[in-house]
């Protein structure tokens, strides 16, 4: 039962300057309560790894807008005007990664792999600085693993051991990020006793989860 902590305790595990992976796709499936607590605590100088930077008033986009982020590694920034503005005017560092490559780099880190070869990005600026290999006549880029200090995730039901069940389209990057950070915190919409989630329905097994926190707001 030691895994269940408060929102305050969860936010305290995130220190200034850390790299954090954040689940969610345009805020759908993001840990909104933890994000709000980080906003209140003014944790800063964060490196954010997330599919997108959402909107200025939703999900991880709020931390960008509050200038708590110094670098983002993401596939899309077009829906958050602050990300582009800070990149152009205030030196926010933005590393754009094709979405499938972002997911797979994270999976590599979690799965103990040294990298992978993808055809995505060949012949584009994405290949700059990367090793290109030709396998059976096709060109591939060598992409390297991507890990983080902390992963902040969201699940619909989480048991006190840390098994996670997701609802609908909220799954997205959450399961893969659960494998790739030193400390993994899942915000639960509902915390249940072990056994209340059918093992057949567990998507993220407890072995990947360090802490569970009860969420308070799910879509703000």
């Amino acid at each position, binding site marked *: 039962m030691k895994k269940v902590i408060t929102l305050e305790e969860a936010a305290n595990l995130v220190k200034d300057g850390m790299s954090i992976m954040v689940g969610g796709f345009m805020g759908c499936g993001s840990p909104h309560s933890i994000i709000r607590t980080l906003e209140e605590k003014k944790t800063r100088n964060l490196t954010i790894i997330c599919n997108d930077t959402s909107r200025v008033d939703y999900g991880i986009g709020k931390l960008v807008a509050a200038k708590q982020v110094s670098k983002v590694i993401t596939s*899309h920034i077009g829906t958050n005007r602050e990300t*582009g503005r800070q990149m152009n005017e205030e030196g926010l560092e933005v590393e754009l990664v094709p*979405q499938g490559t972002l997911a797979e780099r994270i999976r590599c880190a979690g799965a103990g792999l040294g990298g992978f070869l993808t055809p995505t990005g060949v012949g584009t600026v994405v290949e700059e600085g990367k090793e290109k290999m030709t396998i059976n006549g096709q060109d591939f880029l060598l992409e390297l693993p991507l890990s983080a200090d902390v992963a902040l995730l969201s699940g619909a039901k989480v048991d006190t051991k840390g098994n996670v069940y997701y609802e609908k389209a909220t799954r997205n990057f959450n399961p893969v990020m659960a494998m790739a950070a030193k400390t993994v915190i899942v915000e639960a919409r509902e915390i249940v006793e072990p056994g209340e989630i059918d093992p057949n329905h567990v998507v993220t097994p407890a072995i990947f989860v360090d802490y569970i926190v009860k969420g308070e707001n799910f879509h703000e």
Partner: protein
Amino acid sequence: MNKERLRETIAKRVAMELKDGDMVNLGIGMPTLVANYVPEDIDVTFQSENGFLGLGLAPTDPESFDPDLVNAGGLPASIRIGGAFFDSTQSFAIIRGGHLDITVLGAMQVDEKGNLANWMIPKKMVAGMGGAMDLVVGAKKVIIAMEHTAKGNPKILKECQLPLTAVNQVDLIVTEMAVIEVTDEGLVLKELGPEATVQEVIDATEAKLLIPEDVPRMKL
């Protein structure tokens, strides 16, 4: 042609490319409209890269908007009977792994070699590639759905000027003026839009067009 008629023309014509049983990803914006014109006698499955197959039309009743169920643009969506949710690594295994029959995307520029640019304008607009680079590399058929020109300037060029999304991946270009096929010999004018003449298409296109003797009008 007014904007509404133009978008309808393009979406309707793209929908005619869909076949019974096809697995299809529609990009954000105009490509999304294609879903409204799927012939009733065929079964097409749409993939949403944020993590599901069986994407349905947006709920019409705002009360039934479920924040856990959004499309890749973060907008309200629905899932059809027989659909399935999955995480981002599986979503991009579907995309990159050649399991999609068709992807339909918008574009800023396309060229004679089937190169495509649709994710950034240096020093002006950086949206990020999102899933586009993976989609165009992985899908069996890449269809570009776009207006023929931008503010009167050609978008179908000899060579793309903007940073590329992918090299030599485009198969078909559908605009309000024309259907153009990308072949090893170059761009072939296959059909004319409802109001266009061959000469008008040539004038609005920078790339060299191969013109067959008979160019039929789109049968919308």
